[in-house]
């Protein structure tokens, strides 16, 4: 099992979530549906490690990651908004995540150029994301 959430209870101020459990296997898609304020984002942020659950466990590839800090979990979050760092160029935004995986700056550059070619954005690499429309 890729991800297993077991009896997850979260308490954040007035927000409370009681005993959520689900499993996601490799290649699966999981869709969480609920009204605004029901805790969809908070569940994901707790799985990513931004909040500590009051109860319950989170397993990744069978390993208990409940107590691990976010940077040790290997789980990335992509929000609807606040996706790009406004103080970095497009190049730096792509490089930011890669620098934690690859130690060689030349290899990072080549990888970014490859990605940029696929996305047809080599001319935008030095631009600030705040100047891009979509």
């Amino acid at each position, binding site marked *: 099992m890729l991800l297993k959430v077991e009896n997850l209870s979260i308490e954040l101020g007035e927000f409370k979530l009681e005993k959520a459990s689900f499993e996601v296997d490799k290649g699966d898609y999981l869709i969480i549906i609920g009204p605004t304020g029901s805790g969809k984002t908070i569940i994901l*942020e707790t799985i*990513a*490690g*931004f909040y500590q659950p009051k109860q319950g466990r989170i397993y990744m590839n069978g390993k208990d990651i409940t107590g691990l*800090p*976010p*940077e040790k*979990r290997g*789980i*990335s*979050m*992509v*929000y609807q*908004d*606040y*996706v790009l*760092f*406004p*103080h970095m160029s497009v190049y730096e935004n792509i490089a*930011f*995540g890669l620098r*934690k*995986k690859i130690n060689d700056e030349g290899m990072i550059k080549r990888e970014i150029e490859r990605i940029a070619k696929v996305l047809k954005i080599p001319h935008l690499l030095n631009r600030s994301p705040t100047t891009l429309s979509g």
Partner: protein
Amino acid sequence: MTGKLNFREFCIILAILFTVILFVAISFLFFVPSPEVIWTSMTSPEMIFSLKLSVITATISTIIVMLVGIPIGYSLSRFSFFGKSIVKSIIDLPMAFPELVLGLALLLFFGNVWVSKPLEILGVQIVFTKLGIVVAQIFTALPFAIRIIYSAFEGVNKRYELVSRSLGYGEFETFTKVTLPLAKKGLFASTIITFARCMGAFGAVLILAGGAYMNTETLPITLYLNMSYGNLGMAITSGIVLIIVSFVAIVVFEKLEGLNAVKS
């Protein structure tokens, strides 16, 4: 004319009237003494001494205030901890009471045997010394700095930090690579306001450092001492220098605030 328009006019007239009175009052400082008197005062050893001392102490105090204020402002903005609201209230306290009272409190604290003796053993003397100026300036400016720093960090959406953490960056790395650069305008504004506050600190400096002629004499002390001697030219000139420093600080601050507003 509608009631709404009247209210608008009233607000605008009040804003202009108050600004004009303030501007005229400040302008008087520049026109009362003759240019010769200003020049003589500016080049006098006392003025050069106090200007130098003010700039040096204010620079040291600003650096310390920012080094202390950034972690405090960040912790108040981001972390929940026991007694946070009490910490916030106590830090804000010096903003509410007069500088003289703050100076008195600092004098009683650093003059206390239990505090002064251990410091003396370490070779540190605060009361009636130049170090006292720095300490007084720090305690005068710190609450204001923390307020601005806190607002700067509050203006940075936490999700940027969460994204950075999820990409493998630790808490401190995220702080230095994401939070600090995103809050830099607010932090810069805080540095400027802190420097201006330190340059203009009077009551606390007078009581803790003594305000001794050509020893612990900063610009506001020069103004005060010369007013008491009846040397109006020197007093006004030190006032002019302080106004210029404050004016530059406020202009830069407003400019940065404007940039922040445009960005948000």
